[in-house]
């Protein structure tokens, strides 16, 4: 672990124990565990924005919740290093701008919570800091005295950002922060996050299902599929020459704005249900390059020349 490593995730797994339930037990069934996250390792360096992409059920949100300390890993370690002596502080921005703010609290009290809990300011300085933060995210100081219900989705997401910044975090987890927003508002929030990232030199994990957003925002990137990281590397390089077929197919699947070339690029097959046992590569049943080897044996994580890592027996060039 080098000095530049801020977050180290080492062999982390999360198994959700399936409860058989009363009737299930009567019928002699035992609960089946679902490995939502399966031996994931990654390192996030100081000052970078790291992207984590995947479709629903791939385990990206579970991984985020483990990193944020909201749920303990079943196996493995997560180590977060602080900057200067104090216990490392982490903040999180959530997808749903409605459930992420306590509707009974004023915006000022919401934003002040991390300041008070961490004792970052005292007395009058708290209020001043709240006003400063609200203005920083494009709201006004007067908004501190309103309730969240008085704001639109995009404005609420700004309040969430102000609250996260109020905690002066060493590390920021962004869990699909713009997925619930409209196109024009999404662009505003992405722009704001981009500005804050460069102004405040934050270190952050940006989770999304949208590859285009990851390309826009992040320095490095990992692609998850069914609980595993299948590919990881510097964002630009990964987009220029992806090694894992899934990454390639995912990049092509999202329609662009070109009206000349109207071809669609569907990925064959459907996402298997999480928990489906697969002895070999998890993508094998949908992969155009899959051979017998892929179905029998899971490929190990392999390092490429450009700092990328991937899990594939027959990588793309």
């Amino acid at each position, binding site marked *: 672990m080098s000095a530049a490593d801020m977050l180290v995730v080492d062999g982390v797994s999360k198994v959700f124990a399936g409860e058989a339930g009363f009737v299930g037990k009567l019928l002699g069934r035992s609960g089946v565990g679902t490995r939502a996250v399966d031996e994931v390792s990654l390192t996030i360096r100081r000052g970078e924005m790291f992207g984590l992409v995947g*479709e*629903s059920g791939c385990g990206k949100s579970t991984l985020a919740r483990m990193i944020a300390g909201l749920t303990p890993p079943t196996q493995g370690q997560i180590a977060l290093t602080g900057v200067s002596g104090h216990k490392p502080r982490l903040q999180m921005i959530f997808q749903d701008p409605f459930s992420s703010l306590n509707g009974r609290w004023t915006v000022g009290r919401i934003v002040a919570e991390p300041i008070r809990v961490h004792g970052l300011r005292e007395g009058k300085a708290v209020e001043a800091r709240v006003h400063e933060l609200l203005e920083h995210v494009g709201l006004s100081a007067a908004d501190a005295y309103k309730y969240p219900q008085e704001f*639109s989705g*995009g*404005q609420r997401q700004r309040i969430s950002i102000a609250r996260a910044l109020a905690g002066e975090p060493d590390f920021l987890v962004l869990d699909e922060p713009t997925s619930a927003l*409209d*196109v*024009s*508002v*999404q*662009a*505003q929030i*992405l*722009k704001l996050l*981009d500005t804050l990232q460069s102004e405040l030199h934050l270190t952050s994990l940006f989770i999304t*299902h*949208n*590859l*285009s*957003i990851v*390309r*826009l*925002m992040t320095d490095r990137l990992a692609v998850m599929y069914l609980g595993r990281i299948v590919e990881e590397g510097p964002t630009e390089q990964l987009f220029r020459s992806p090694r894992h077929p899934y990454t390639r*197919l*995912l*990049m092509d*699947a*999202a*329609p*662009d*704005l*070109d*009206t*000349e070339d*109207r*071809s*669609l*690029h*569907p*990925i*064959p097959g*459907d*996402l298997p*249900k999480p928990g489906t046992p697969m002895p070999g590569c998890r993508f094998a049943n*949908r992969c155009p390059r899959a051979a017998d080897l892929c179905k029998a044996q899971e490929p190990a994580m392999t390092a490429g020349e450009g700092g990328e890592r991937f899990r594939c027996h027959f990588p793309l060039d």
Partner: protein
Amino acid sequence: MSAALLEVRDLRVELKRGKQQLTALDGISFAIAPGEVLGVVGESGAGKSLTGAAIIDLLVPPLKRTGGEIVLSGRHLDALSREDMRKVRGRRIGFIAQDPMTSLNPVLTIGQQLVDTIVTHLPVSKEEARQRAVRWIARVGLSDPARRLDQYPHQLSGGMRQRVVIALALCAEPELVIADEPTTALDVSVQAHVLQVLRDLHEETGVAVMLITHDLGVIAKMADRVAVLYAGRVAEIGPTSEVLRTPRHPYTSGLMRATVAPGLDRKALDPIPGSMPNLSSIPPGCAFNPRCARATAECRSQRPPLVDYRDGAGKHACFHPLEDGR
């Protein structure tokens, strides 16, 4: 435009909230030609789903259609009784809803639902209907169609379910299908697949499609023409390539530049300031004027009418349309 399959003229939908009478759709007009795919795009609150619901008379109170004409193949749908409208729905206009979880009946098998729909609307025997159902399952790309017929919706994945919904919408051989955000609830990898199925069936059957979406990428790939809605009004309508390459309305252009599409440069992302107004605070004049860099006094006081450009190839509602798309 006399050859239009569906013609919507000056459609108004209002709702009463307390003492306020609010306008949700404010004079929507467009036409769909036989066999055409019309994309309807807009952000939430633009009224795109309401437009679809108003056409097939599925508005939920307090929403109410208060004006306008809806003409399908020369027949006024707006004047139909509830009973007659029910026959049109399903038989002549199919509907694909956003959420495949709730648009299928969970206690009936896929086969029962398809056969029911077919025998309700077409003069065929139950046996013939069953054979057709099997063919429809195969046409939407599900493997082992005969066995699928006896499966329940919960036994299928989200993408498969949405393909069954497409089969249900098309099995009565309608002339028009309204697809309301058909791929929004689906994952990226599944989304393209469902769009492909929709496109193939459109080409095979010649059904016209009204494709409602917030995703300009979907529009770019699927739509022959596109209507851009803003605050319950049509901002711009025209051939997709024309509208997306050289948008006339500043909102269309703004939406394009705010869209995070594959291959977009970080610097090029350019948000539209502000947000769509609430129904209760739609500004006078052009609804977009507070967010528009080109707005003048005229825009703030008068509502721009929908006018033709390029000899009727398209229409826009703007006093100061863009010339070069920027």
